[in-house]
């Protein structure tokens, strides 16, 4: 009897406790959630985590959703957050052509390499003879762009990467639906200016990726007139920053331009050209910063290197197949220009 009496209240108590336990847990999780929602952005923007902040901000800025940040934060504050020093902008290091001695002007040895890291997969193609690297431009100029692989196949190329900037508008004016119908800046092929088709401005400064008649890679800001003096055969334009000049790293910020798919071109001391494409924009593989691109280029021995159009445009074609996997339902994006390696 005694036992029973003693038992009952205990049992009841336990039941009560059980019920309130789940309520407490639910409330607790709710509290955790509320806390995280409110404080995480604050910690991100104003906390001590510099690299994380820079990466998040510059990743968003490098997409077409830049307004999410530009509308919220004034430019001056943004520059401070990203550690951009405007006074340093515009200082251009001159390339020292003596640092490159093109060794292979005959033959055509091309090698492919894979790079796997925890943040991205990369693809490298190295071309020993730089004279084999040529510019391709969409054959439907002003109408639409072409896929890098299409241009590669038309030129019977060994390898190809997507090229420079282009006007990103469809024929009915929808922004960002550009097919790559017109390149940005200018395009030189076989020593001739093939875009714009007439009235090219000789003294407009553009950030170029170019090859001279001797096979030297030229990166950085140049005018058409300067390139002509340097005897440039192949050229297209993208935008700053430069990656490596004279063997010196040009990018100090580890999170430069955020994590995105990338395309870049570099050249080794012996003239070997490096094509680099990095995948991204997937949850497990967000992509690479321009700093990462620089480190890969340094690792491969590049003396000069510059970036081409990244994001969904990034494409690497090698011997009949795409090496990277553009992360879109329609596969490869069409672009205005490409670099290819002739047979």
């Amino acid at each position, binding site marked *: 009897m005694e036992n029973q009496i003693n038992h009952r209240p205990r049992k009841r108590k336990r039941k009560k406790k059980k019920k309130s336990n789940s309520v*407490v847990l639910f*409330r*607790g999780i709710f*509290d*955790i959630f509320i*806390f*995280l929602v409110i*404080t*995480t952005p604050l*910690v*991100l923007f104003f*906390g001590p*985590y*510099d*690299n*994380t902040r820079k*990466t998040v901000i510059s990743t968003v800025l490098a*997409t*077409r*959703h830049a307004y999410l940040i530009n509308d919220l934060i004034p430019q001056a504050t943004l520059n401070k957050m990203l550690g951009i020093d405007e006074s340093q902008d515009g200082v251009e290091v001159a390339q020292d052509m003596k640092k490159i001695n093109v060794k292979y002007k005959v033959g055509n040895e091309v*090698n*492919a*390499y*894979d*790079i*796997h*890291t*925890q*943040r991205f997969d990369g693809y*490298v193609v190295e071309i020993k003879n730089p004279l084999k690297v040529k510019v391709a431009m969409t054959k439907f100029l002003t*109408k*639409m*762009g072409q*896929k890098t692989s*299409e241009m590669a196949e038309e030129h019977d190329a060994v390898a190809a990467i997507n090229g420079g900037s282009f006007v990103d508008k*469809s*024929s*009915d004016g*929808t922004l*960002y*639906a*550009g*097919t790559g119908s017109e390149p940005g800046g200018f395009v030189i092929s076989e020593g001739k200016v093939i875009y714009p088709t007439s009235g090219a401005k000789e003294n407009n400064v553009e950030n170029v990726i170019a090859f001279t008649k001797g096979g030297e890679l030229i990166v950085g800001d140049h005018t058409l007139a300067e390139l002509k003096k340097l005897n440039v055969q192949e050229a297209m334009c993208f935008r700053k920053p430069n990656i490596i000049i004279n063997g010196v790293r040009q990018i100090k910020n*580890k*999170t430069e331009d955020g994590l995105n798919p990338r395309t870049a071109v570099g050249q080794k001391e012996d003239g070997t050209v490096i094509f680099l494409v990095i995948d991204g924009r997937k949850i497990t593989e967000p992509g690479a910063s321009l700093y990462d691109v620089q*480190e*890969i280029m340094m*690792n*491969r021995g590049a003396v000069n290197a510059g970036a081409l159009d990244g994001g969904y445009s990034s494409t690497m074609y090698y*011997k009949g*197949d795409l090496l990277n*996997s553009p*992360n*879109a*339902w*329609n*596969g*490869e*994006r*069409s672009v205005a220009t490409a670099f290819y390696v002739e047979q």
Partner: protein
Amino acid sequence: MSKIKRRLMWFAIALILQQCIFLFVEKVYLSTDLNIKAEEVQEKENLADKKTEIDIKKGLNEVKLSSDGRFVSYLEDSKLKILDSNDDKEKECALDTGAEIVFYKWLSNENNMIVIQKVKDKGVSYFEPVSFDAKKGEARELADFDLNKVRIKLQNLKDKIDDVAFSTSTNTLYIKVKQSDGKYDLYYANIMNQLKKVKADKILGNVVVPTTSTNAVIEEGSNITILNSKGNLSIPNVKSPKILGSDVNDNVYFGELANNKIKKIYYTVLSDSNRKWNEIKLTQPVDEDSIIIDYSGKVYVNNKSEGSVLEVISNKSIKYKGDFVQSYSKELFLGWIIN
């Protein structure tokens, strides 16, 4: 009092959790200098020469060819299978469990297809497009930058996918849904994979997207409209036009309907400010569905009873046995099934 204490405790847990994640991202994920190691890629053996004949099994449904003819796809036991003619290996487009494939279409210049599956999520049914890369054998979801999936909620379980229209060049995708009452809805997913209903409860016919454009050209009632532009499209001297197709050169093809047959084909580049209309006269009026506009810009007329396909411009005729499947672009050959 204890309530406040308890909340503070939870906040403390949240704070620790948050700081741990930040610390991890900052100090481990982003700071570790990447271990860059390039592995040389070994050359693969050259693939076998392209075949001119592909053997497939009997009794398959929805047989379609990829744009270069390398892949044949079909439904077998309601599974979508893809046969690679290079190595005779069969791949399956594996979807989420419980998903049902209701529609699929090859893209016009890629070895990718758009597959639409019907899925159930918390008791609600959706149409969900995915893209399948036949070379890699991978399916991928269509999601916007916030990783929201593109999906269309079924208003009625009898809703069907009638067609999809796209331009791969401008990343434009339209999905046409047929409702149980015979009317149609049209959905548009833009380059950011943001989905919008652009036509609701309309009588819609064929829909195409011109290659360089994002706005669909639509048969609406007995008229032809271009999305986001006013009025109807008029073709000189054509009273009752039908949309036939579009091609790589940005042309859109129309037919003139008379007594339910087409006797003349008209085509133009709609984005040109001065449209130049081109005409193709057919030797005899034919049914609309026997005209095939290939993405390469070739026009074919299929003569089922004779078992031949005529390429209209060159006037070349090809005979076949069995059922005609479709044209494919690369080598101007045609696919058909020999029973």
